[in-house]
């Protein structure tokens, strides 16, 4: 198929070949994690109509790390995830996945293929599909049109879905319409969808919002079990939850890093107390 002609909008990247971004994701190469770092954000700035949402933000996440990011409302946490996943283009700065993959050159689906999965702040699932179908669609597979017209689930894939259903405790709801789930269950389903994608890096935007204490507890266990095998970046407001899972905590404030370190140190940092309590 032809390369697209001219016509570019602000939100578009240099080129999207309508035939194969799967192939392009491969062509971008395998990420190189030799330095032990999975995600580098360097000097990222984003402004919306003059309002500085991210201000020279720099951040590095290690392979296998579980990083918590906290910060008051409007600190730029969601915007940071938008930048990483290709939804928002920054005014300046760079984002690298491993040593070699420039995420800023990629479309959202390409970023997903590279190995970044994202959970939205507001649970975003396919409300009219069954729980099973939600997992089926998000499963790691050839995601080109041609393939999906003839795709059939093999027994291995069915097993994977069954296992994820168990993990997110929705075995009994497999054939329920996802829109009918409780808020907490939707959150879990979205996490399950991420797991089906088998990403190397998971970005989780307020994953336990609206969950019962019990559900929150189990989510903490799940994340702790995932850390090491995958890298996780968790944005959360729930301090008890953060305290439970956090190793390194990054505090974002007005679009840049205010403090970073172990939970106890960050909690006692006077600048952090000022930001959280002093207003």
């Amino acid at each position: 198929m032809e390369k697209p002609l001219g016509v570019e909008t602000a939100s578009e990247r240099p080129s999207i070949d309508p035939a194969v971004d799967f192939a392009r994701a491969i062509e971008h190469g395998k990420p190189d994690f030799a330095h032990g770092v999975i995600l580098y954000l360097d000097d990222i700035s984003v402004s919306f109509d003059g309002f500085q949402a991210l201000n020279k933000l720099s951040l590095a996440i290690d392979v296998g790390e579980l990083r918590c990011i906290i910060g008051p409302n409007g600190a730029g946490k969601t915007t940071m995830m938008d930048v990483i996943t290709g939804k928002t283009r920054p005014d300046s700065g760079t984002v690298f996945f491993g040593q070699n993959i420039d995420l800023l050159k990629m479309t959202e689906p390409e970023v997903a293929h590279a190995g970044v999965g994202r959970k939205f702040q507001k649970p975003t699932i396919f409300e009219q599909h069954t729980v099973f179908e939600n997992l089926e669609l998000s499963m790691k597979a050839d995601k080109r049109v041609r393939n999906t017209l003839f795709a059939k689930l093999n027994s291995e894939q069915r097993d994977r879905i069954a296992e994820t259903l168990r993990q997110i405790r929705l075995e009994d709801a497999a054939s329920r319409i996802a829109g009918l789930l409780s808020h907490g269950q939707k959150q879990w389903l979205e996490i399950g969808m991420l797991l089906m994608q088998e990403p190397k890096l998971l970005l989780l935007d307020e994953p336990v919002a609206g969950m019962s204490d019990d559900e929150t507890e189990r989510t903490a266990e799940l994340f702790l079990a995932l850390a090491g095998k995958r890298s996780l970046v968790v944005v959360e407001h729930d301090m008890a939850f953060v305290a439970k899972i956090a190793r390194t905590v990054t505090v974002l404030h007005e679009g840049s890093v205010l403090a970073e370190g172990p939970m106890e140190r960050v909690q006692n940092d006077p600048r952090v107390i000022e930001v959280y309590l002093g207003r």
Partner: protein
Amino acid sequence: MGPVSLLIARLYGPRGWMTLAAFALALFVVFPLCNLAIPEGNPLHLSAYWVSLVGKIMCYAIVALAMDLAWGYAGILSLGHGLFFALGGYAFGMYLMRQIGSDGQYKANMPDFMVFLDWKEFPWAWWNSDQFWWCALLVVLVPGLLAFVFGFFAFRSRIKGVYFSIITQALTYAAMLLFFRNATGFGGNNGFTDFKRILDIPVAIPSTRMALFAITAATLIGSLLLGRYIVTSKFGRILAAIRDAESRVMFCGYNPVHYKLAIWTFSAVLCGIAGALYVPQVGIINPSEMSPANSIEIAIWVAVGGRGTLVGAIVGAGLVNGAKSYFTQAFPEYWLYVLGLIFILVTLFMPKGVVGLWSQWKNRSA
């Protein structure tokens, strides 16, 4: 179970297949028998009027089906599908015009309108148009290519919702103005008519009409089954996912542009085929088929029948056009009011259309 029986079970349940078989029986056996074998005067005889009315409605039903694939499943509301229908009709109409040969009013080996305009040779677009296979190819290629190119730029620029709908309205309107001009080369506001033959066989005789009717019925049933195949595939589930949560689809690693483009182009091609079947049965094609109101009507058929069900599209096309053919005879000046009223009532009280009403009623009685 073998792969074939699995596929059959995937498309429809036993009740669905039975209903379909009943319809096939009516269309392929009852209609030809009552029209051709039972003589006129016998109360069981079906007149040519009915054959052509039902044939025409089946063409509309194919368009509605195509519309439902794009709108009901992928959430792409086109208000320009009449354009693809008309282009298919014009592409095949060229062949029908050439088949008139020198039997036109001017006895020239050229369509009358060209003689009238004092043209000496065929415009470039008519190249090879005396060949059936070539025009049949154009029926698919012209709407398909236009839809592909238009869709490519629209979807890539992430034009959605009402903006997309308005642009499709503008597109069909612009095409209508273009086709109104004599210089465009397709007969201006009169379009094409007075067809005589198709594949050298007289077009107006009962057996030809019945053959066209049967081909249309087969195309309709084939489109329905193909549509079912599409919407029950993973591809179909992704379309519905794009409709409901496009950003999630992208972050799952699918590029929605490709999916929308695929179903959009397929939908346009289906409309083109319907248009090509329509023209020889109705006997005329002119630019009014491209009027914006025509395309809006297509959306109303689907809304009335019930979006996202395929069968609903066919039911809606049948009901609205059945009502239309009654009203335009009985009270011609009121049809548009009636159509508007139907649309308002459906939007207010039957958000899932007639087909949805059926399942609502079943749920209540169960």
